[in-house]
């Protein structure tokens, strides 16, 4: 069957919308009036309270300016347009750029059965396409200036809008929803043909059955980022009490308790706005390969930044799908900077234990990171990777410490003859030399050779 609406056209529930393995239950989208999509405009003139606009003359009376880019932010299932993360994201965007930031509220269509919400997505996408068409026809505003950021079901809203209104500049999918979309044809879900540039952040890609993963795992955009491997996000394995009683309050804690991994996607994007040089993504075959050190450092043309500044890499895309991996911190601020550390030990006693290295640079110093644990033989070389919580700039010195948590009466000594540090971003190598050996739990400073 089919349902038609005057402004937005007709919506059918035949294949591929229903009656397939991925979308077994038949549902027609609700009417635009029932869903009541609302466009909440924030600009530098009104950063704290939105102006409600719609696809008519109200645009002309609002602070909307055709001289600047427009970024739509679309929430997902059960969520709403006035939720903090959308308002905070607009606020942050406005601190770094002068844009029309529009939060799209479709809570009346997202707070229902999931099988219904996943079809209401089509009407909301059509509403955004209609809005962008009005901008073009009435105000001569090009769709290439439009960027749609969609979380979960909101990512497929963006895909639908992009399909109906070709020429949209960019779509960012924040953990696009998996149920009812993964494995469906491109007309149903977000894919790279929906905009000139499509970047995706995957943070909850475990299968929905049985692991309750909510996000899609396949790479569907021009750049697909899989922070921390895309399955388990650091900081999401806290026990229930610690998760719910969150620093930002019980409500944020409850949201995290329900879908911590899934919500990390918009938290990473929000942090990326204020860290233009953070979240470097390394192109690699798998997360394991990335973790064990292949795909390091960045190639000559550099690595793309996950999040807001991913479009700097737009011109350098050559292959079809690019899977990018990186690690993040477990709480905000999330970005980390990756370094390779190679330690050649010195001394004459052979011990078991662990070796820590702390990096010092022009912009600060890191805490101690463990490079190796096990047998430690002088003259052997050990390699480890550090995701530093500080962007060091030029690395000026390193400090070495070893320990084995065993009281040895012989008070053995160990040292590091050379430590080589390579920065992932600019491939630059720094060599440091050490001339002494130290006992356990004593820091040995190595300076440039």
């Amino acid at each position, binding site marked *: 069957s089919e349902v038609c609406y005057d402004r937005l056209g007709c919506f059918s529930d035949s294949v591929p919308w229903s009656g397939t393995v991925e979308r077994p239950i038949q549902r027609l989208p609700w009417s635009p009036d029932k869903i009541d999509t609302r466009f909440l405009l924030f600009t530098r003139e009104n950063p704290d309270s939105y102006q409600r606009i719609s696809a008519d003359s109200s645009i002309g009376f609002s602070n909307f300016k055709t001289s600047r880019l427009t970024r739509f932010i679309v929430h997902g299932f059960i969520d709403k347009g006035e939720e903090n993360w959308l308002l905070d994201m607009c606020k942050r965007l406005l601190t770094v750029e002068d844009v029309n930031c529009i939060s799209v509220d479709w809570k009346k269509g997202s707070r229902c059965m999931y099988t219904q919400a996943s079809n209401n997505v089509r009407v909301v996408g059509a509403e955004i396409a209609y809005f962008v068409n009005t901008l073009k026809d009435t105000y001569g505003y090009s769709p290439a200036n439009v960027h749609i950021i969609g979380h979960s079901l909101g990512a497929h809203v963006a895909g639908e809008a992009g399909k109906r209104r070709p020429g949209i500049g960019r779509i960012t999918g924040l953990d696009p929803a998996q149920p009812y979309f993964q494995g469906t044809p491109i007309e149903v879900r977000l894919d790279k043909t929906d905009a000139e540039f499509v970047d995706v952040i995957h943070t909850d890609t475990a299968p929905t059955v049985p692991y309750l993963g909510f996000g899609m795992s396949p790479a569907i955009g021009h750049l697909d980022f899989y922070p921390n491997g895309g399955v388990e996000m650091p*900081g999401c*394995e*806290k*026990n229930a*009490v*610690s998760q719910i*009683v969150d620093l930002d309050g019980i409500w944020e804690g409850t949201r995290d308790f329900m879908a911590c991994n899934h919500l990390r996607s918009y938290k990473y994007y929000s942090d990326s706005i204020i860290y233009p040089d953070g979240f470097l993504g390394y192109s690699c075959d798998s997360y394991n390969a990335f973790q064990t050190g292949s795909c390091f450092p960045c190639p000559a043309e550099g690595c793309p930044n996950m999040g807001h500044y991913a479009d700097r890499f737009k011109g350098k895309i050559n292959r079809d799908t690019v899977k990018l991996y990186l690690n993040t911190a*477990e*709480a905000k601020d999330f970005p980390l900077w990756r370094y390779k550390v190679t330690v050649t030990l010195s001394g004459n006693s052979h011990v078991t234990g662990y070796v*820590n290295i*702390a990096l*010092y640079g022009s912009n*600060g*110093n*890191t*805490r*101690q990171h463990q490079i190796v644990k096990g047998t430690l033989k002088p003259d052997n070389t050990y390699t480890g990777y550090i995701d530093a919580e500080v962007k060091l700039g030029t690395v000026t010195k390193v*400090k070495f*410490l070893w*320990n084995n948590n065993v009281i040895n009466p012989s008070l053995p000594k160990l040292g590091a003859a050379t430590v080589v540090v390579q920065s992932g971003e600019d491939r630059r190598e720094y060599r440091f030399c050490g001339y002494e050996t130290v006992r356990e*739990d*004593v*820091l040995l*400073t190595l300076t440039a050779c």
Partner: protein
Amino acid sequence: MEQERGLVFNLDTGELCLQSAQCKSHCCHRESGLSLARCAPKAAEMQDCSRKSLYGVYYKCPCESGLSCNADRSIVGTITNTDFGVCEDPAETKASR
């Protein structure tokens, strides 16, 4: 996780704690007297710190191994665990003195 994860011991960074012994990082930290305490990483060089104490909870974490906290002791501070300083490398402070 090699050791078994419990609600009470081997707590990760960010988990609620009452005593530093519960935390893997050995630092149960709270911002103010009123806020809840959570496990936090030990302080790195140049970061604020408090001296190791028998108390369970710190306003500033003690330093990482190999570093010492240059907080000077005061009677009140020892009682209320509010003697703060900055983590230093003893090798460097000896050399500079």
